[in-house]
């Protein structure tokens, strides 16, 4: 088990290097620092001196890969690739284009993100499983068919409409909670209810439909027929036989998402004004702050790889037959 995890971690390194190379190509080769300077400075103020000054200030005035002027190791360390890309591996994210320290920003902003994402995630899964189990109980009836239709209809509504509709009904018309904002000290739950509610409801369509398929697949298995033959009640078949067995496919889809919860949700956070990583990314995209986007890409990949490893470990816990080797 331990050896397996170590091997998986080692396997993660080439992937992270790949991510690093890809972002580097995108941000520095396809789009040269000169282009970046022009778009950051704005068309009006573009002079060769201004571009050079901007590049020097942000540390883009070095060669891409090999610095011929420097001596020794400096030939490789005093380059854009080393200072901007490889330093990410040491979690040294540097400064954003507006001069703020990205590492500090990330570590303060991930907690509000988690405060929204974690409850949405847990309550969402719980609600989806409950709804799916209820539908499976009435399988092959008209109720089942209509439920599937409703799920598909819910899936067909854009996420934006859930947010806009939720804000309009709950916050504006019924005035139950504030429309947006966040305050970690003063009754944070008041600000969290609506975002969590919106995430949960918007996920029911696709979530419950997927769990229903998983449960139905299990319901067609031989052990279910055997259980029914020996006289087990439908309820106990559902909870004691189908649910535990359906856990394995559920885990594959779900565990991989847990680490990425830190990243928060772009849309929810920006609509509800929550100062998390999601709105951080959105602001970075809108102000074309590529230093932040680069760092967030790197963090996101690390979290995803951790999620993959966690998924494998959770298999052994859910299914004793699985041995990691």
């Amino acid at each position, binding site marked *: 088990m331990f050896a397996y995890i170590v091997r998986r971690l080692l396997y993660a390194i080439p992937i992270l290097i790949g991510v690093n190379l*890809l972002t580097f190509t995108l941000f520095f080769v396809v789009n040269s620092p000169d282009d970046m300077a022009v778009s950051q400075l704005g068309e009006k103020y573009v002079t060769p001196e201004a571009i050079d000054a901007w590049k020097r200030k942000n540390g883009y005035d070095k060669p891409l890969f090999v610095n011929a002027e420097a001596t020794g190791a400096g030939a490789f360390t005093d380059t854009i690739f080393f200072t901007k890309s490889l330093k990410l591996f040491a979690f040294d994210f540097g400064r954003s284009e507006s001069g703020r320290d990205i590492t500090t920003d990330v570590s303060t902003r991930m907690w509000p993100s988690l405060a929204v994402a974690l409850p949405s995630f847990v309550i969402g899964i719980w609600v989806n499983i409950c709804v799916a189990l209820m539908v499976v109980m009435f399988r092959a009836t008209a109720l089942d068919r209509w439920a599937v239709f409703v799920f598909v209809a819910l899936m067909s509504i*854009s996420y934006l*409409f859930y947010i806009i509709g939720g804000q309009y009904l709950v916050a*504006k018309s019924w005035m139950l909670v504030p429309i947006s904002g966040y305050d970690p000290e003063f009754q944070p739950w008041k600000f969290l209810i609506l975002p969590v509610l919106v995430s949960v409801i918007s996920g029911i369509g696709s979530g419950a439909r997927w769990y229903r398929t998983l449960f*139905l697949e299990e319901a067609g298995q031989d052990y279910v027929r055997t259980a029914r033959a020996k006289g087990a009640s439908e309820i106990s078949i559902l909870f004691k036989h189908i649910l535990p067995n359906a856990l394995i496919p559920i885990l594959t889809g779900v565990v991989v998402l847990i680490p990425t919860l830190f990243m928060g949700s772009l849309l929810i956070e920006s609509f509800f004004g929550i100062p998390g990583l999601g709105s951080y990314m959105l602001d970075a995209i*809108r102000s074309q702050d590529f230093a932040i986007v680069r760092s967030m890409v790197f963090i996101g*990949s690390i979290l995803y790889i951790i999620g993959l490893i966690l998924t494998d470990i959770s298999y052994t816990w859910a299914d004793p037959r699985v041995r990691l080797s």
Partner: protein
Amino acid sequence: MTAMDFKPVLLWSDVLVFLLVIALTLFFYRLRRDPQTRARWGRVFSSRLGMVTFTVIMVYVGIALLDSLHFRRALPTPEGVDTTEIFYDNKVTSVLDVLLDGMGERFERTYSAPFALQSFEKSNMKDEQGDMYRGYEDLRHAGQHLSHPEAKWLNVLELSATALAWGLLAAALVVGVQWILLRGSKHPWQASWAVQTVVICLGVWLVYLSHYYHVLGTDQGGADVAYQSIKGIRTGVLLGTLSTLVMLPIAVTLGVSAGYFKGWVDDVVQYLYTTLSSIPGILLIAASVLLFQVYIDLNPDYFAIGMEKADARFIALCFILGLTSWSSLCRLIRAETLKISQLGYVQAAHAFGVGHGRILGRHILPNVVHIILITFVLDFSALVLAEAVLSYIGVGIDPSMGSWGNMINGARSELSREPAVWWTLTGAFFFMFVLVLAANLFSDLVRDAFDPRSALGRSGT
């Protein structure tokens, strides 16, 4: 020189969409020859739901194609100028605009509610004595024919009845022709005809009434919301199909070769898609679109008219969406190919000394087609929804090109006004919801018919 002169305009996305139509026609023509595939499609279309959803999708695709035939009108020669040279309007018109009969040219000053006669907001006006006062301005293009504003709703009813009569007549013609041709068919065409009747009646009603009222109101810039919603169809349909088209060759080539050749090819492909899927998709898309935007901004002389710039950005978006989303399909195809290449008939082909190309083409590819097909339909609805989100983030369709995402983005804070401006969102919601719902329901049917595993799952219950 008449006003009917025009010059066709071929945008890159128009070329691509007509190529796509030809490719799909050929693909389905080939598939038709295979009896098993025919039986499966037969199952999709033997249900009423299949007929209804397919008809709805075809209506959207048809509108998108009509909206892809672009041209520029000739400008009338000014009086007293003696020249044989024809100048063309800078504005690009489509065949759909002509069919909608000027619906998009009736601008108001700003917001107005559906069927309203007056502006939504008060503005400064002058009375007969020339004194300024605040009041609701009369609209320029709504209710001009009315002598009394009180008679509005009665008039709407009258107009609707006329429009409905014309609509029913047109529908009777269209359905009648099909009825004569398809009388003996075993498929439930009645369901499709019902949808066609509803769509034709709605269309005629909308175009007819738009001469007298703004059926879905106007937005902040005074543009007709119903017109904008219809123009959004082309963007949604094209984005959904073109992106998948970009993604398919990559996913299929890599997936099949990874599953078939195994060894280092498999390792490389797995490495590629793990790397790609580990990057948060939205960030990758946003970064790529921003980089392309910088490129457009730095090279403005590549694009002659504004529409071409918007079109270039649109095609870039399709390519970026395609290039960043092939990993899940690739994974599915790789797994399926691994399974198939273990089967007896592939092993037998190997033993007979059949070459790799022939095995791939005759034994492997035809057996993964169902996965491609299901993904194509399923991704379509996901992409239509994604467009709205990308436009909100600011990396979607160019604002000058109509799209549902841009409509929502422009109207999202309007609900907080008092009273709320609800019609822009309603228009975008309705047109988008119908398309995505139809595509989702249709993809369910296709999957049930083509995926042996899900069919087994159903019979087991």
